[in-house]
């Protein structure tokens, strides 16, 4: 199973699309590793610089409809090769969300209120998140504050995460 705990990157916008996550011109790459420097290259957010801000992060917290647009699995791969295996948001585009779990990664949905609260408390601080898959619990910490939020994950998605992805799962089931 992949690692889901570590430093958090906050992306404060809805509808961040796959072209912003990994621009089409890099789709000619045929190894996942080569996508590493280009993650979020075209994302324009106040004060955000992709190379500087992605470094060392493990978790992304964002808003609604994350990963809309193209079906390119290059989007989750670009996160994966940067060590980011968990994305938390209000909602996800269908294909992106499926691609995450298919790769044994996680896309977790929280309520608008919870996401709002996390942005308010943590967005400006160095934040660390621990995902406990046994207790379905996220523990989010920054200096002097700690929040606990439970999350839900379907049985099937959990099976994909535990199997390490859909290829391994499908191969043993069908």
């Amino acid at each position, binding site marked *: 199973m992949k690692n889901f705990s570590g430093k958090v990157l906050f992306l404060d916008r809805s509808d961040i699309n796959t072209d912003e996550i990994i621009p089409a011109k890099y789709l000619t790459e*045929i190894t996942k590793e080569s996508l590493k420097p280009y993650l979020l290259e075209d994302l324009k957010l106040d004060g955000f610089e992709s190379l500087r801000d992605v470094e060392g992060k493990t978790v992304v917290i964002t808003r609604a409809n994350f990963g809309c647009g193209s079906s390119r699995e290059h989007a989750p791969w670009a996160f994966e090769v940067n060590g980011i295996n968990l994305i938390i948001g209000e909602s996800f585009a269908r294909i992106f969300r499926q691609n995450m779990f298919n790769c044994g990664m996680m896309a977790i949905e929280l309520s608008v209120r919870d996401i709002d609260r996390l942005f308010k408390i943590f967005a400006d601080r160095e934040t660390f998140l621990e995902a406990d898959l046994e207790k379905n619990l996220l523990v989010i910490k920054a200096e002097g504050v700690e929040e606990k939020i439970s999350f839900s994950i379907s049985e099937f998605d959990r099976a994909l995460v535990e199997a390490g992805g859909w290829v391994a799962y499908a191969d043993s*089931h069908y």
Partner: protein
Amino acid sequence: MGKTVAEKIFDSHLVDNPSGDINVIRLDAVFCHEITTPVAINDLVVRDKDRVFDASKIKVVIDHVTPAKDSKTAAQGKILREWSRRNHIQDFFDIGRNGVCHAIFPEKGFVRPGYTIIMGDSHTCTHGAFGAFAAGVGTTDLEVGILKGVCAFHYPHTIKIVLNGHMPEGVYAKDVILSVIGRLGVSGATNKVIEFTGSVVDALSMEGRMTLCNMAIEAGGTCGICYPDMTTVAYLWKFIKDEYSDKKAALEDFEKFLPDSDAKYDEVIDFDVSDLEPQVTFGYKPDNVKPVSEMKGIKIDQVYIGSCTNGRIEDLRVAAQVLKGNKISDSIRGIVSPATPEIFSRAMDEGLLKIFMDAGFCLTNPTCGACLGMSNGVLAEGEVCASTTNRNFNGRMGKGGMVHLMSPATAAASAIAGYITNSDRYKSAKRK
């Protein structure tokens, strides 16, 4: 309880129900192109599973960057070519016979009502125009599809959009779908299938229906679906004539995939198109839509007519009708890419290509081309393109470029004017 089209298709293809509403369904076709398939192929090779579930159900095309533009795209083509050969995939379309995936696969008769289809391409929803369930997936789903012939989905929820009224002159399927997306929003149909019905859809050709369904994904939809009818049968007839005694028998067979009258929908939206004006997008999201009349005068640098949305023969006819006898503005670079060789050759026979060239358009081979800024027609920083494609994301056609989506008629008129404008002024000028 009654069922929707997608529910009927799922129930007839169910393989497994691993948990909750997850349905693993059997696939009738797996489509592949050179951008998203090579990584799946390489992974299958690494896993020592370089096989396909059924070579006759896998259809392959090189379309995004063709001819190859550099060593990397050449390598992608090579991987696909060699894989198709060693796995005995007959339906592989290489340069000279290739065209944009969502135009060429229907044209070759690879889609049927009631089919389940996946492809590593978000606009796979196009094929729902035939009454099929067709969904874009990522590379891992594609890989499992290739290997096992199955894919997992949530049991489908459906929104029904009823399009009635009389289509005004100068208004096309593209204007309808843009305004639908404007209403639904970019995530209004996420995780849902959209059924398009009503007298407007009944009157549309298969080409027009494909334009509608093509953009379902821009509202987040898994698939757009039109009901199979005589138009569907007529389009498919040359491929199915040996299977049925006559067209009526084919229709009767396809009608088993019509929704039940008591089918349950998440939402039913009635939409009268009678007052609809030609539509255009502004900004970087496909739901940022306005009537052309409100965007008139916006300067453009390039016009692109092509793609899986609007690169079909009808689209070229409409654009050529506007362009005929006119020259495009000196400040405009016009590019037209007929979506398949068959469309190209029909456009040649009908004299359409000559009209485009006389007007000052550059004509390319069938390819995705400028649509995704990967091969030709890339925009420079700060440039603006009037485009018949389906996506206006920031950077889509080149970093720092702006894309305005519109119908072929509006794109052609804007090419002549040098700025965004409605097609009537050229048509009415000709009528005088």
